[in-house]
């Protein structure tokens, strides 16, 4: 287990709106992304997972505001950088070259009136102005080849490509400047299972070759278990559990993670009746008191509706890799 952090999020909170009308979409989230790992971030819609991603890359559209916290980027062999206090020029250098993002519904993120080549070359023009025209075209070709699209598609328009190919172009574009971190926000949700698998396979392969870290955001936990190294589960703007993928799958501690894991019918093994999670996700404008999951939780007891549980390593378990925020598993008495 590598513990070499590449990105550290400390106590990040994101509000939409200002003053007492603000809705807090992300609450006090701390998360560490290690070098070369795939960190999965799962949760229902409205749990704040995309807001977290936009917050830490400073891409939040107004009225979104980062109201507290720090995001620290550790460049290889360099001084740590606080992303949230970067100057506009510094931010411009940081984006794409260090951290790139593949957006939700990436199938529609390409500009329909420009050729794929124009859009790929545009990135290189903006970030590496010294490059010659031939070198740029060659690099665009190389990028397409890297994601498994034949070079003659360079002059195609987005509508001439299938959904899977457009998604590959987006991934290729994200990797154009060889960033250290790639954030993927539901990159395969719009695709079929077969195509989804092909793209994930490609991503795994590319990650091996270029050694970048991935923050993979999705609502499909079954996908994450197979694909990521560690998983963090979000609910109501907070991270409620964090553990290595296989550990989380075998033995989840938080009742919400447990509920999510039992929301997928299994393709193999015995057929059993499943119930999902009763109730619906919380309304961010009027969050329940205490643990935000307690109105839906089958195991809720007295403290759950009063106090907010803190994310920490549970006392009854060994190893620092696991964290959970639940009163069923009181955390170890320590500084964190």
């Amino acid at each position, binding site marked *: 287990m590598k513990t070499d952090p590449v990105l550290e999020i400390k106590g990040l909170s994101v509000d939409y709106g200002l003053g007492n009308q603000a809705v807090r979409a992300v609450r006090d989230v701390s998360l560490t992304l290690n070098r070369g790992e*795939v960190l999965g971030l799962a949760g*229902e*819609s409205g749990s704040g997972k995309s807001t977290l991603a936009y917050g830490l890359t400073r891409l939040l559209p107004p009225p979104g505001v980062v109201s507290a916290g720090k995001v620290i980027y550790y460049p290889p062999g360099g001084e740590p950088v606080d992303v949230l206090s970067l100057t506009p020029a510094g931010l411009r250098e940081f984006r794409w070259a260090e951290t790139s993002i593949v957006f939700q519904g990436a199938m529609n993120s390409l500009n329909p009136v420009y050729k794929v080549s124009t859009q790929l070359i545009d990135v290189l023009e903006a970030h590496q102005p010294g490059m010659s025209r031939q070198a740029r075209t060659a690099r665009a070709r190389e990028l397409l080849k890297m994601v*498994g699209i034949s070079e003659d598609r360079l002059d195609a328009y987005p509508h001439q490509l*299938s*959904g*899977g190919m457009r998604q590959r172009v987006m991934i290729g574009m994200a990797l154009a400047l060889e960033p250290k971190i790639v954030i993927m926000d539901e990159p395969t949700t719009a695709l*079929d*299972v*077969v*195509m*989804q*698998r*092909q793209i*994930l*396979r490609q991503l*795994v*392969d590319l990650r*091996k070759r270029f050694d970048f870290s991935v923050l993979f955001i999705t*609502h*499909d*936990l*079954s*996908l994450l*278990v*197979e*694909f*990521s*190294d560690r998983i963090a589960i979000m609910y109501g703007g907070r991270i409620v559990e964090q553990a290595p*993928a*296989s550990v989380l*799958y075998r033995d989840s501690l938080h009742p919400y993670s447990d*509920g*999510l*894991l039992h*929301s*997928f*019918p*299994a*393709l*193999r*093994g015995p*057929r059993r*009746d*499943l*119930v*999902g*999670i*009763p109730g*619906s*996700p919380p309304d961010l404008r009027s969050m329940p008191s205490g643990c935000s999951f307690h109105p839906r939780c089958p195991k809720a007891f007295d403290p759950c509706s009063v106090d907010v549980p803190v994310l920490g390593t549970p006392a009854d378990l060994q190893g620092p890799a696991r964290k959970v925020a639940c009163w069923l598993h009181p955390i170890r008495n320590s500084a964190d």
Partner: protein
Amino acid sequence: MTVTTEVVLAAEGLTKHFPVRKRGRELLSRTNHVVHAVDDVDLVLRRGWVTALVGESGSGKSTVARLLAQLYPRTSGDIRLHGESAAVSTARGGRRFREYSRKVQMIFQDPFASLNPVHTVRYHLTRALRIHGRAGKGKQELHSALAELLGRVQLTPAESYLDKYPHELSGGQRQRVAIARALAADPEALLADEPVSMLDVSIRLGVLNLLRNLKERLNLAILYITHDIASARYFADDTLVMYAGRMVEGGDSETVTQHPAHPYTRLLVDSAPDPDRITGSAQGLVQEEGVGEPPSLITPPDGCRFHPRCPFVMDKCRTALPPRFDVGDTETHWAACWLFEEAKA
């Protein structure tokens, strides 16, 4: 599992071709291109029985649902409701169409789009009841009909939902209202086109369990269209697999998902995310081979439509269309694949 109940809705040789608009030089040519969206589909919906139709997007599964609901006129083939053939050119809005749609109702994928945002739940349901002549006489009867409908989809007490607008409801509640609206016609067959794929994972099962419950209580025939083969196994009695506009495999759900016969079904089952396959990290993913994409339906491949991607392709597959062969493990399991030609002989 081989209990056969009454057939409610049957389709035979159902075919739908959409014309392609001509552009530029094509305007002068005489050939008319068509998209072969659905070709020669046979399917049977039984009372109290869930049939799943599984396939990728673009495989024609939604077109099948719309053909069965008579929202599209079909190119050829036959649809029979209780053995009675539905007219090919059922004009939408005509009396015969209305009679047909009273018995065959559809639930759409997106409950955010299928409910009118400027009307309340009460309006949506009252309208459906009135159109199908089930609103009763007077306010009292209407109200009890509304309450009963909402009770069936587990939105109780009815009073707290009737005057809500769609935006005040969660996705799961909205889909329940859409289901209640379909039930207002007191249908015999329900065509559910990806009813849960737009919902949050934690509430999908609630809606599926509700549909199963309704099937048992009201003895409905349900067509469940999905791209998620694992949920077909969970929810459906029979599963049919569609690829590029044609049926490729069918049988009871357990057999089709556990012992898939057609190479496409195998690919589909292998591609489904499976947490049990974890190897610590993503190593297992790398070893599999690439598999291409579905074909263009304007010029579909000759022979078996899966042959360009098939790992077991033979010469025969490139020229001749495989008919349905019995696979041999259970009575109802069949596959349209030349690999099973000998099993039949």
